[in-house]
């Protein structure tokens, strides 16, 4: 009897230990949020917009970003199309939950830097299928996360995590992310509209190892409701090259590339 009791206690300990090891949705998304991608990045971004008839438009941007811990600064210079050449967009995104981004735009025709409202995060970026919010790092505390299941996706075991926003007026009713176990890389994400219908699917097409960091260099956002796609490609990616702080200033916005 004593032996049986000991065995039962051991089994209970194992069960408790296993339960404690199981990671929850919030922890998974926190790891995705904290996945290291270098302190600074320089890259040439190409966006190809493809409509339902297969017609393509191209956008070309040179971008610089740097992580300062409490704030991530990004500056983008538009190269093409010709009518927006040398337009610059700067975004300062804060890790502090609830603190709005600071955003400015420089329009060469107006020769003026204009602070813009960060409340327009649901706007689509340059007519693409990515909203400004999709391009930023949404803090995990802004959503309730639940692990739906674990499954294999494109040969890798993934956690499938449902994230429901805490605020009522967010642009999506929920998102579902496929996160590769151990590397914490998001491989796929589904976005659902306010009615709960599937709106967009983000699929990572290519990941490159650059300076020991996993960098997504090709991804596709497909709006399944309008059958419009945006392919986003990064070229000439440089990590931790020591981008000077002066790159994220009024001076650089006006000077351009």
């Amino acid at each position, binding site marked *: 009897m004593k032996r049986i009791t000991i065995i039962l206690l051991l089994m209970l300990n194992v069960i408790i230990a296993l339960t404690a090891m199981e990671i929850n949705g919030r922890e998974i998304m926190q790891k995705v949020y904290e996945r290291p991608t270098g302190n600074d990045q320089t890259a040439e971004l190409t966006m190809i*917009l493809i*409509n339902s008839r297969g*017609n393509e*438009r191209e956008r070309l941007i040179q971008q610089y970003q740097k992580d300062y811990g409490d*704030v991530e600064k990004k500056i983008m210079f538009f190269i093409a*199309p*010709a*009518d927006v*050449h040398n337009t610059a967009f700067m975004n*300062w995104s804060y890790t502090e939950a609830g603190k*709005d981004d*600071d955003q*400015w735009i420089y329009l060469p*025709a*107006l*020769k*003026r*830097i*204009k*602070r*813009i*409202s*960060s*409340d*327009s995060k*649901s*706007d*689509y970026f*340059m*007519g*693409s299928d990515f909203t400004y919010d999709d391009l930023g790092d949404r803090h995990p505390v802004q959503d309730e996360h639940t692990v739906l299941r674990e499954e294999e996706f494109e040969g890798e075991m993934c956690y499938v995590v449902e994230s429901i926003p805490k605020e009522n007026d967010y642009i999506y009713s929920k998102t579902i992310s496929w996160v590769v176990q151990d590397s914490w890389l998001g491989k796929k994400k589904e976005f659902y509209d306010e009615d709960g219908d599937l709106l967009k699917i983000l699929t990572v097409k290519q990941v490159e190892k650059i300076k020991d960091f996993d960098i997504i260099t090709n991804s596709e956002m497909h709006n399944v409701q309008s059958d*419009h796609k945006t392919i986003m490609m990064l070229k000439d990616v440089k990590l931790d090259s020591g981008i000077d*702080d*002066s790159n994220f*200033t*009024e*001076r650089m916005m006006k*000077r351009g590339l």
Partner: protein
Amino acid sequence: MRKIILLILIMSLGAALNSTLNQRGFVRSYLGILSDDESFSIAQNTFDLRLDYRKNDLNLYVNPVLKYDNLSEELTLSLRQSYIDIYFADFDLRIGKQQIVWGKADGVFITDVISPRDLSEFIMPDFEEIRIGINALKFDYYLGNSTLEAIWIPTFQSTIQPDAGSIWFPETGEFQQPVQISEPEKVAGKFSNSDVAVKFSHLGSLLDLELMTAYLWDDTPAQHKFLQVDSSLLIIPKYHRLPMAGASFSKAISGAVARMEAAYYFEKRLHTADLITHGICRKDYLHYLIGYDHNWFNVDVSFQFVQEFIRNYEDIITKDEFTNTLTMMLNKTFLRETMTLNIFSYYGLNDDDALLRLKLSYDFSGGLNILAGYNLFTGDTGNFGQFNDNDMAYLKVRLDF
């Protein structure tokens, strides 16, 4: 013909330096029709070339503009800007003909007074085409997110007023006696007649701020009136110094942007009905704006309240003590930002007059843009009501390269 040859030479120079030279610009065809009598008020073809040569810490920028006016059959070649930038570690120098823009106002000039304006078509052209490039030396010193800017403008450039026969020639009021208007007195080209200006600006998380002061010439002449022996009136336009101090800021508040801009002018010459003082008096003058920008339902909306205030007002002054204007802008894009609807309206509270500018544009791939617009003036008097007969529909076809 010489103008075209000169432009070809500039382009050939561009081709010779092709490895480090950026050549951009646009070709535009612009046709405007007055609603009242269906006459063509604008028929222009423009070739706007922007050459940008950058090497190490030097940048050369030249912007020649070739314009053919189909109505007057005139071909003009002008240099909108032509300057050299020299970049240093902590400061930059810009030398040459340049447009300088101050302030945070949309569609209104408050502290934005460094570059004079070409008002030959009122405020109808794009502001880039309204601002006149000035010969200046601009020095910018950078300290983190702050900039100290100092400007020296050695030569005077006046605002360009519409010709007397133009539909944009402003109302001058009724005179009881015959009037003779002389040419404006020229500002002599000498060192003591230089303009100087200084601005401090900061761009940061808390707010964006500008503080500025300038010792300028008022680039619009004051009309000095002299009663002649034969009872006629002689008007002599004269330019005067106009010192100013100003400030502007913009700040994000709960997802919106609040803006303010103010300029205080010292002893501005104002027109009066008193011929003993030659129809001129000097008063301090405040011009300010409060603005609010927000995005509602994916529509960019902007409101501005603008006030001009004359201190120590006297009843003989022609202009009102307070002149109040409201502006509203709506901007909405459709079809993945290929189509844009923009409405910008000015409403003059003093004269109950308004200007409504409606634009609908579509971006085709390959840099082609077609814009259809309509300018609607209402009221009888005031800044906008005086042009009540100038309602105009227009079409712009533009190819950027």
